[in-house]
Each structure stands twice: as C-alpha cells, then as structure tokens.
C-alpha cells in the first residue's frame, strides 16, 4: 500500500507500533495509547480499522501485531520520518523538538518527487566534491549566526547600513526605496525573533514588494505580492530586495509562468491573465472600470524611462498605470 492512502493518524498508529516493536516483543493497546497520548478507546477503534485493511492483527485482545503488509508500510513511513528529521536537524539546523514535530507531518504529505529531491539535496551537500567542504558548517556557523560574524562577504554586505548598490544583481534595502519602487525579496537580515513574524506574514524569498507609501515616522506601506501590508522602520531595514531583473535571470531560480504574481512583476512584452484585483478604494474602482476583472487578458507593451509607468494593452485598448498600481493586480503570466 502506498503512503497517503490512509489518514495521517492511521499511518501514525502503524509507525508507533513499528517503533515499539523494535524495543519490545509485543505491543499492548495501552502502550500505543500512552505513546500517542490518546484514550484506549480511540486506539481500539483505529486498530479495528487497520485490522479491516489487513494491516494489523487485532482480535480484541490486549496484544496487537503488524501483518506483513502493515509492517512494510510502517517501515516506509518510519524511514521517511527518520530521514526528514535528520535533514531538518543536520542541514537546516532546526531544533530537535520542532524537527520531530515537522517530520511527523511531512512524512505523510510529502510527494515522492519532492522527497527524492530533498534526498538529492542532502546527497549534494554532503557528497559532491565540487561543493566546497564545510558548506553546511558555514551555513550553520556563519549564515545563520549572520550578525555575529564578519567572515563572510555576503554577511558583511548585509551588515553595512549603506548597502544600496544599483544595477543588476545587487540588493537594496527596502528602507532605501522610494514610493513606487519595488523588488523581489532576497533575504531578511535579522535574528529569528524578527524574521519569524515577517515570514509568517508571507514575506518569503521571491515575494514581490512594492512601496505604496512612506510615512514620515518611517513606516512603510507596501504591497507584498499584491496584498497590502505595513512594516515599521526596523522591519523595512532588514528586508533586502533583488532588482526584478536579477531575480528573473540571475540567481538561478526558475520562474514558472503558472505561478501567480502581480502585474508589476510580469516581464515587458509578456501576456497575462487577470486573477484578482487586490487594490482597493479608488484605484480598484478605476481598474475595474478599465476592465481589470477576473479572466481578462492583456499584455504589457512597454515601460517609461525609469521603468514606470507601464503601458498595458487590455481588452482592445491601451492603458497606462504605475508599477505600484500594477502591484495590486494578481495575474498569471501567459508567455510572449
């Protein structure tokens, strides 16, 4: 049986039984209940279901055992768990408790394809001779502890408050952008305490950000992939952005056209289809009047000298709009 046929919870029961069987000869219902922290009655009903599937041998007695098929399935789930947990701890430096919890949910949901890629990544990081030895160590000791070390060039650049280098391939702090300017999130230079709230709000690498308004108190009103958000001054200083072109061409991250993005992130010359207008108030009204509604198709014809505003063809006529306005429309790119 393939992983994912059963519910997560049933797979967990199998996995627990497998683990228990490694240290003890027999498994009792209350062992399982204790391990999974549930009532025995729940365990009994789960075991009945598994028994019906032919995965366990449970005859309403105190002891249970895995069938051949159940043992096979349980083994595979357990292997995944072990691998993923190790990957999270060893490579991503996640603390063991969180790694245990996350591995527990990933093991059921992850596709074979992605699992294989994670395995490849793990092989690459530990075995490939072209990767400089100690890449993982450096990630742990220097990158994650970024602000405590000067030994890495990229960290030094990030520490420099003046980092505002123009041109392709360079990063800019969000706090140095003016109204209407934007970019793609490259990284957030801060400790976990500051990073986590941002990441929770969806500020992840590759998200597009456009500045809608700068308050005098240093607050930034932005659109992150179309949605309106506010950052305080400290937050806006920690977010480093790629220029849009660098994101597309330079850093080797393939951009799949079917991934939705804002109109401001569509390459000039490409066609697009509108998914949703996230702008509000007057701008939304104007956009709707001009035909920005779900399913409408158009094309970005050109941009003005400083990449702003844009000329767009939509529903047979030409429109102009500023980039920051375009950042309030979610579209899918349709290609050239």
């Amino acid at each position, binding site marked *: 049986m393939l992983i994912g046929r059963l519910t997560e919870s049933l797979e967990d029961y199998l996995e627990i039984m497998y683990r228990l069987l490694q240290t003890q000869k027999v498994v009792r219902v209350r062992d399982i209940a204790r391990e999974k922290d549930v009532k025995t009655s729940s365990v009994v009903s789960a075991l009945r279901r598994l028994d019906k599937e032919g995965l366990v041998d449970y005859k309403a007695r105190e002891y249970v055992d895995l069938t051949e098929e159940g043992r096979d399935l349980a083994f595979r789930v357990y292997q995944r768990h072990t691998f993923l947990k190790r990957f999270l701890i060893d490579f991503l430096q996640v603390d063991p408790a969180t790694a245990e919890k996350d591995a527990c949910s990933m093991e059921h949901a992850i596709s074979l394809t992605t699992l294989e890629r994670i395995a490849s990544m793990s092989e690459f990081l530990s075995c490939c001779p072209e990767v400089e030895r100690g890449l993982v160590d450096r990630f742990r000791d220097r990158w994650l502890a970024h602000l405590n070390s000067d030994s890495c060039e990229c960290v030094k650049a990030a520490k420099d408050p003046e980092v505002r280098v123009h041109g392709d391939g360079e990063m800019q702090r969000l706090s140095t952008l003016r109204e209407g300017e934007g970019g793609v999130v490259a990284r957030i230079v801060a400790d976990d305490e500051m990073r986590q709230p941002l990441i929770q709000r969806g500020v992840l690498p590759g998200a597009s950000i456009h500045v809608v308004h700068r308050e005098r108190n240093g607050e930034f009103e932005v659109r992150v992939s179309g949605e309106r958000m506010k950052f305080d001054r400290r937050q806006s200083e920690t977010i480093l952005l790629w220029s849009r072109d660098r994101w597309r061409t330079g850093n080797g991250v393939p951009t799949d056209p079917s991934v939705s993005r804002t109109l401001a992130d569509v390459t000039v010359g490409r066609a697009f289809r509108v998914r949703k207008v996230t702008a509000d108030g007057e701008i939304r*009204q104007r956009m709707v009047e001009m035909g920005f509604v779900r399913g409408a198709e158009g094309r970005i014809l050109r941009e003005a*000298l400083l990449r702003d505003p844009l*000329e767009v063809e939509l529903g047979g006529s030409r*429109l*102009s*709009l500023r980039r920051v306005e375009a950042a309030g429309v979610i579209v899918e790119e349709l290609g050239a």
Partner: protein
Amino acid sequence: MPDRIRHRRRGIGDRRAAGRGDGGPWWAMPASPARKTDLRVAVAGNPNAGKTSIFNALTGQHQHIGNYPGVTVEKKTGRVQRDGISMEVVDLPGTYSLSAYSIEEMVAREFVLKEKPDVIVDVLDSTNLERHLYLLLQFQEMGIPVLGVLNMSDEARAMGLEIDDAQLARILGIPFVKTVGHRGEGVRELIDRLVGYARGQVSLNGRRINYGRDIERRRAELIEELATDPVFAESINLDWLAIKLLEDDDDAVRKVERGHERAADVLAAANQARRRIERAFDESAPVVVAEQRYAYIHGAVKETVRRRELRNRIDLTEAIDRVVLNRHAGLFIFFAVMFLIYQVTFALGNPLSDLIDRGFGNLAAYLAGVLPPGILADLVVNGIIGGVGGVLVFLPLVVLLFIGLSLLEDSGYMARAAFVMDRLFHMFGMHGRSFVPFMIATGCAVPAVMSARTLVNPRDRIITVLVTPLLMCGAKSPVIAMLAAAFFPERSGTIFWLVWLGGWLIAFAAALVLRNTMFRGEAAPFVMELPPYRRPTLSGAFTHMWERAWMYLRKAGTFILAASVVIWFLLAFPRPAEEVGAGLDRERASARDGSPAQIEDVAADATVSAHVRNSYAGRIGRFIEPVMEPLGFDWKISVALLSGFAAKEVFISTMGIVYGIEETDADVEGNSERTPLKQRLVNDPAYSPAAALALMFFVLLYVPCMAVMAVVWKELGAWRWTLFLAVYTFAISWALAFAVYNVSLFFGLGA
C-alpha cells in the same frame, strides 16, 4: 414665430392623443410660458468617445457654457428644434463610470439623480464597446431612459468590426444609432429617435440587468430594508441605491446616513450583505458586482459584434507609440513637441500682444489729448485702459496655447506625454498631467492655471495651480533681465539663468512640501486610457479655444479691471495741488507721444517723486518699508512691487515714475545697454548688488499678478486658496530674498 408655436402645440396634442400616459417626459415639465422644453436630453459617455462632437453636431451653434453649481466642471447646454419638439441638451462630463471618486463622476451622477433628464444619450466608441457599455449599464440601472449612440462606426468598420445594432437593441432593450460624430453622420437619425421618443413612439425603457441569484437576493433584502422609510424610498431609486450599497459606494452610504431614518440598520444590513457575497464568491463585493456587469456586457457583445480578421492592417497607434513612447526617445520627442507648441505660440502671440499693447497705448494717448485734463482723464487713461489692455494683452497667448493644447489632446498625444513625464512629477507628489501647466507657465501662468483642468484629482489640481505661478514667466523676465543687466553687467546671462532655474527648483520643492503637509494621503491613480491616435479636427480645436478665450475675457476681465482701477487709485490719490496734477497729466501724455527726453528735468522729477511718495501707494510703501528693509528694499521698490501686482512688468514703469522717468520700449525688452533707469538704480546708494539679487528672487516668487489671482480664484472656485496663494508666495519670496540678501552681503556684494 407664432406658426412654430402652434405647430409645437399641435405636436404635443398629437402625443397626448396617442395616449401614452406612462411617464412621457412632458408631464414632468413645469409649464414655462417663456421657453417651453419638451424633452430634456443629457449627453453622456466615456472620455474619448467623441461625446463633444456628437453634442456639437446636435446643437450646432446654439450652445451656452456655464458651470455646474459649486464646482469648476464646465456645463454646456444647447437647444435643438425639430418637428415642433424643443429639446434642451446638456453635455455631461466624460466619465468611465458613476462611482463617487472624481468630481466629474459626482457631477454626472448628481445631475442624473437630481435633475432627472428625460433621456440620456450615451455616446459609445464602437471600436471598444465592452468598456463603453459599462457606463450605459449604470445609467440603465438608475432607471433613466437611455438611447445608445454607436459613435466612430467608420473606424469600427475599418477595423473589421461588424456591429449588429438591431441585436444589441434587442438584448439591452433600447435602440442604438450608428454615427460618425466629427462628420455629423447619423445625427439626423439620432434627433429623429429623440423626437420619436418625445412623441411616445419609441420606447427607451431598457432591461434591468440581473446580477445572478446570490446578489439579487441580497439586493432584494436591502431594498426591503430601505423601504422601511417611505419618505426616503420615495426620493430615490431603490434598485439603484441597493446595488450601490453592495458596491460600498461612499456617496450612497452618505445618502442613507443623511436621509434614512433607520440609517444605522440599513448600513448594518448592507455590511452584512457584502460580507455574505464576499464569503460566497471569495472576492470583495464591489468586484463581484462589477464582474457580473462585465459578464453581462461580454455576453451582449459576443452576440452582436463580429470580428473579421483584416490582413495587412497596420496598427497605426502601436506604430506611433513604438516611437513616441520609446523609453529613450520618448522624452526627447516630448520636449520637442512642447518646444514646438511653445515656440509657435510665442512667435505668433508676442507680436499680436505687442500690437494690442501698442493699440491701447495709442488709444490712451489719443484720449489723453481729447479729454479735458483732470481726474477723469487720468482714470480713463491710466486706470481703465491700462486695466483692459492688461487683460487683452494675454489674450493671443491664451488663444494660441489652447489651440495647440487641444490639438494635442484630441490627437491622443497628451495622455502619452503624461505617461512620459509621470515618473518625474510623481516623485514630487504630482501627477503626470501636471507637466502641461508647468510647461505653459514658463510663458504665462494665466493659461497655465487654466490648463490645470486636465487634472482630474482635486488635490493634484490645487497643488499644480499653487506652484506653477512660481516659475519665471514672460512678464517677470524683463524685470529680472533689467536688474541683472544693471547690477551684473558682466554676468547678467548667468544670473538670469540662475534665477530661472531657481523658479523651477522652488516650484518642485513647494509641490513636495504641500503634498507632504496640506495634501497628504495616497496618490491619485494613474490608471488611465491611452486613446488611439486620431486626427484632430480644426473645428474642435477652435471651439475649445473659443470657450477658453471667452471664459478668460469674461471672468478675468471684470476682476482685473476692478483691480487696476484700485491700483490706479492708490497711485493717484490723494491728489496734490490741482495744477501740479494737471501738469503731471500733460507730462504723461506728452511722454506717451514719444518725447521722453524732455522730462529729464530735475524739478519735474522731484514733483513726481513727491507725488508718488505722498500717494496712498507711497504711504503703503513707506508703511511696509520696515518689513522690506531686511531684504535691502526701500519704499520706492515697495511701491513698484505693489504696482507689479497689476502685471509684473509694470514694476519697471513704476520705478520709472518714482524716479520721474518714463520708460521706453527698449528697456522693457531688457537691453543690456544702460538706460537712464538702470543708471539711476545703480547710482542710487540705497541699492547694492546684494539687494538687486534679492529683488530678482523676490520678483520671481512674490504674489502672482492679479490676472493669475483672478484665474486661480475662478479655477479653484474658492477664495481660500487664492488667499493662501498670496500669503504663501509672499512668505517664500520674503524668506528667500532675505537669505539671498544676507548671503550676498556675506560674500561682499554689499557695495
């Protein structure tokens, strides 16, 4: 005439006999014995739909231009007579929808709701029906009879679009007429339909759009809620209001708040309805409503428009845009186009202005000779003729600039220019369209302020109007050139350029400051149409020009005339002893005849000087001297500055009067050759190069001339802003002149 009236009466009788009592338009009309109107027609449509050409074709020369009450949106009305039916036609402002975000939309909507025209003639661009039907649908929703005009049908044909107007009429339940507005094609038929409607032979009651089960249910609930106040329900179309509440329209909410006795309950119900729609569609309610409208339109267009693919058809608009909006060439083309307009305007306009100026000069001289010398002659010659001349001198510039601008607007380039310039202007908190007033203001701020009308957002418009007068205009430049030449003979060019540049920098800085203090908030959207290029019609340009010229003459004329009389009064009163006054008049008159050399007499100098010194203006000058002293200005400059309010170049002639010298034309042109006035200024120990430099900046920035103030008042419709303009320009000019004066003193320009 009696014939016609009888004829018309018969017409009405016919209609009554036809027996259509279901709300024909003439019932609602108040019986007016003076001028009877059988049908009140409003012409509406999107911008760029050719609305104006249809309106012009309908009404011909019988137009009247005014304003909608309380706002500076033009209201054009006209009359049509046909077959005994008398129609009053109102041109509504061009809008894309009837939301409550721009003044134009509010005006159009209020007009339809309050004035309840009998028919709306909605002009549609046949080449882009989907967008244009959006507005038509909204009119239908308001329950007003609509007649559709498929304008630009020739272009649609050329593009391979075949529109089945009969089918469209069946779907939407109203007739459509195909027209070509600028050639007047189809307008006869349009009038026939209107006459037919007036006689009850044509039905214009369209279908009511169905928004689908979910939304209709919410709408029905809201209508029920609204109907709980019968008085309110009587006053407004509930069908429409309910949809607008679902769209979260500010104005609709306000209407409920003000008028409904259970406003809180209604609004709560509306909020709940919106939330439910949002949950059902996973999209905000206003967007869902709009999407339903588009879906409806999309269906209608699909059934009625056939598109034949034409081979070898070049998209002319794209071809032009590729050049004109090229990232790099675009800017140069923009400057070239503006330069051309500017050159043509001032090359043709300046000689005409001079001609007018000279004409008034001669008239003044003639009248001075004819009229008995005395206070009356002085008032006529210096007060009235000076004032009227001052207005008319600008007229050629106003006229020519507006011909040029309306050609640009009608061709479709203006929107492109805004596209090219938006980034720069947006950085300073303005809109791409602000560039037009800026460019024009380097010639004259009067037409510049008038041209700020192209800015839709009131905030952008006010900022632009408030800062453009800071730029160096054609009237300030001779004053500054004269001062530069007098005090900095070696470097007059550089100094002049420096002051010119200062004007630009200060204007941009002022815009930025205003935007970040008094006009904060989110920027107005730049989402706008770039209309396809079309050949502009000369008649359109001339109509536009004529409107502007007339408006300027009428509104600015009265104000400026009054102001010049006041300034004249300040300079002429109190009269010195009678004989001295008469002598002065004779001297002035002879000076205008062209013999200025004779009054080099020192004694005459002293008399004139003393007179000016004792006049009210002189007293004011001396009174404010303490204020101006920190800038290095004495009472004489103060008086001249005061008179410069009439027109900035008057500064020179007033200085001349103060020193007892009549100016010759050569000085006004700003020749580098040293004239008596320049010589005197330089020789006067009271003035230093530092003071001159400060004076140049002061003249550049201080309170705009009264012609500008008059149009600002007119355009912004509020004396508050006019007053603010005066106060803040004075503050800036004083502060800057103070800084310049002291820095210059520090660098040793005091001697």
